């Protein structure tokens, strides 16, 4: 056998081995339960980094097509607060407000959004709420919220960095009891924080 033929043989064997390995891994996952689909075990850090980058850039590119309102009215912020408190706070908490304890069973874990408006533009926040995030627990809300309501939520997120825990508790008190059938988000507002300002 010539040297060239030997090299060719070695490469084809290596290729074959690689294909067989990939096939074995796929088969192990598909047919033999080799991939653990449990919700809460952590990804290795490089993978969670890659997933996060993919999501960030997907949102940033697609949000370019979304035109955001110039400014939001206090009424929109108020409407957004009601939607946030009844639909979002359970997973995302609020200022001084914890998430529901079961959120610890989600991977990736839903972040607190106190700083969301510093990281994302209005269009990007609209898109995340409207479309949701694949392979996380974030649903697409487009079936539940009208575009106007989604902008209300964005209006509230925009106002969130300026709200203290006491402000949030006050807004809750002003909003009155939650509408029938709507779950109250987040944990309990601490009693001290919900007392009227001195």
């Amino acid at each position, binding site marked *: 056998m010539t040297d060239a033929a030997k090299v060719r043989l070695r490469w084809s064997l290596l290729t074959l081995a690689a294909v067989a390995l990939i096939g074995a891994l796929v088969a192990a996952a598909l047919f033999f339960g080799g991939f653990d689909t449990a919700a809460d075990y952590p990804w290795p850090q490089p993978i969670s980094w890659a997933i996060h980058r993919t999501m960030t850039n997907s949102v940033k590119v697609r949000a370019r097509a979304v035109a955001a309102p110039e400014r939001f009215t206090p009424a929109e912020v108020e409407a957004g607060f009601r939607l946030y408190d009844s639909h979002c706070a359970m997973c995302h908490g609020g200022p001084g407000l914890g998430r529901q304890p079961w959120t610890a069973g989600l991977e990736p874990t839903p972040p*607190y959004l*106190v700083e969301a408006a510093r990281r994302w533009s209005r269009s990007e926040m609209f898109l995340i709420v409207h479309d949701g995030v694949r392979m996380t627990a974030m649903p697409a809300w487009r079936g539940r919220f009208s575009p106007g309501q989604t902008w209300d939520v964005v209006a509230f997120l925009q106002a969130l960095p300026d709200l203290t*825990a006491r402000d949030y508790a006050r807004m809750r008190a002003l909003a009155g009891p939650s509408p029938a059938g709507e779950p109250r988000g987040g944990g309990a507002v601490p009693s*001290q924080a919900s007392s009227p300002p001195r």
Partner: protein
Amino acid sequence: MGVSRLRRRWTRRVLSAAAVLAVAAQATGCRKGPSPSGLGDPDRGARLVDVEACGSCHVIPGHAVGSGLAGPPLAGFARRTIIAGLLPNRPGDLVLWLQRPQAVAPGNGMPDMGLTPQQARDIAAYLYTLR
């Protein structure tokens, strides 16, 4: 090939594998057993820091996703003298703060996260590894 040479070669392989593992364990911050302060398990605490989304509001060394600025960065936490500008940075006070920040400082931005006492001790043990 003599038996002793084969054995030497395998010994070398095992030793180098062990060395690689040791370096990897060092690099990933693997720590075993309870912390010196007897608080909790710092490894479990490090995991809880991710699970409880602490990175939404805090920059935490080695925890890439998150890195929020709403709360203070946690680097060098073990050397800090005061927690939240209120409590001395002692293990008991830290565990109390982690469990009930709204009781310690009503209306502050850090939420009561519903941590169990053991979880709070684990996170405290982890925070004290940040020198």
